[in-house]
């Protein structure tokens, strides 16, 4: 992958009380790639993702977006930078006081002042893209967990962002729905040509979606490379994680994920 660096994470440290979550993470995101941040639950993946979009402030380190440290930006500048991002949250984070359509249309209404037919068309287009056409009038409480993730994706891509961040997109879903979400993420990357960071603990998802994989263990990056390199590496921590991943998958899933 040889493009320009869109996001450059440099020596990121973060603790919550006595719990040191990030311990000097450095990572680059190249334009056009899908980078999967892989690791066990509680290793600091989601915290890393929230730093990348400026939702958390680190104890030390910087995140450069197009060469500028987002933690040095003013509120206005950070808002402008965030317009290049779309984020799918772990629990979908849909606004429960709004309908599905209002959720998807919110960024367009608030940032572009979009109204009327134009807005309706945008909402229906995005719902079609995630396979939920005709459901814009439902409330988040009336749809399933998998559908919520799809709506969250539709909302994240409503204004065709340059970078899409996915926080555990398949967590809490049954294997069939998780597979559908994985395929949907890959389709979305192909259709929008967006650059993406996917945070997951699911080895199968990582191999299916990712161009490159960064393995995080206990707040540190243990490995960065392509999915093939991940499978071939002799690094002990990586081998351990892959072995655990294999153990969690059945032989069929393991085969489909290319985990031989």
């Amino acid at each position, binding site marked *: 992958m040889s493009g320009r660096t869109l996001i450059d994470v440099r020596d990121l440290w973060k603790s919550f009380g006595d719990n040191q979550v990030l311990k000097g993470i450095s990572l680059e995101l190249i334009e056009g790639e899908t980078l999967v941040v892989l690791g066990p639950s509680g290793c600091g993946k989601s915290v890393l993702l929230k730093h990348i979009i400026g939702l958390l402030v680190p104890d030390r380190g910087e995140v450069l977006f197009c060469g500028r440290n987002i933690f040095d930006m003013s509120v206005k500048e950070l808002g402008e930078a*965030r317009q290049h991002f779309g984020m799918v*949250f772990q629990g979908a984070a849909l*606004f429960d006081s709004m309908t599905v359509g209002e959720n998807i249309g919110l*960024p367009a209404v608030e940032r572009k002042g979009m109204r009327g037919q134009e807005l309706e068309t945008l909402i229906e287009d995005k719902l079609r893209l995630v396979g939920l056409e005709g459901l814009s009038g439902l409330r988040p409480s009336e749809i399933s967990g998998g559908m919520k993730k799809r709506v969250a994706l539709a909302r994240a891509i409503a204004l065709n962002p340059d970078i899409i961040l996915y926080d555990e997109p398949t967590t809490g879903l049954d294997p069939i729905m998780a597979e559908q979400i994985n395929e949907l993420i890959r389709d979305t990357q192909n259709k929008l040509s967006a650059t993406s960071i996917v945070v997951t603990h699911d080895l199968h998802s990582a191999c299916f979606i990712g161009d490159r994989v960064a393995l995080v263990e206990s707040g540190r990056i243990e490995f960065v490379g392509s999915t093939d390199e991940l499978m071939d590496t002799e690094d002990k921590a990586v081998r351990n994680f892959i072995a655990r991943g294999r153990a969690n998958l059945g032989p069929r899933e393991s085969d489909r994920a290319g985990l031989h």
Partner: protein
Amino acid sequence: MDFFARIGQSAINMFGVVGASGIVFWRALISLRRLPRSTKLVVEQMQRIGIESLPLVVVTSIFTGAVASVQVSYQLKAYLPKAYLGTAIFKSVVIELGPVLTALVLGGRVGASIAAELGTMRVTEQIDAMEAMAIDPHRYLVMPRMLAALIMLPILTIIADTLGVGGGYVVSNVALDVSGKVFVDGMRTLFYAGDVLGGLVKACVFGLIIALMGCTAGLAARGGAVGVGRAATRAVVASCVLILVSDYVLTTLIYGIIFS
């Protein structure tokens, strides 16, 4: 030592709350620049804070006026003629009982509701999602609530004043043997427009306090359902304490200095 440590921690927490509400207030204030885009949200909140609180305010104010009438009549019967019953009821209701009781009742109903709503949004990452979409929660959530409370509290206070005096009027007529004409003449005696105006100024400040405490507690909520419950409790306690303290300060300022 533990005792002093706890006092010290409480002091630090208090300064933390004051600092947090100062930042929330300031950010809501500067987002007023984008008021035209938030008009619909303000109107929506005016309905939720004002119209939906009306039944509670009606019941509270009618019975407050009625009780005040019985109390004044009982306590002053040896010292003042009944001709002054209307004077005492009117002044006590418009200067003190109307604004303060309306604010305390709304501090419970509205303050808890705002804190619970924003707190739930915080713990379910809806506010993070809003920030990630480059939508400022202070403009979208806080400013409309503060403005709506600032507008609706004086309106509800006018209604409470009217119904409170009305309640006193009816009880004086029916139970205390004071004719309507005597009661109204009493109201006219020693009537100052400044009495009503001062009460409404207090109501504006109380409205701001209720919304600000609700928003600050809600935005600071952490840790699931327990955190949301704590946020609601904190909002109600802080609102009630601040309403009573600021009532003393404002009463001294308005009636002791400005109108004296």
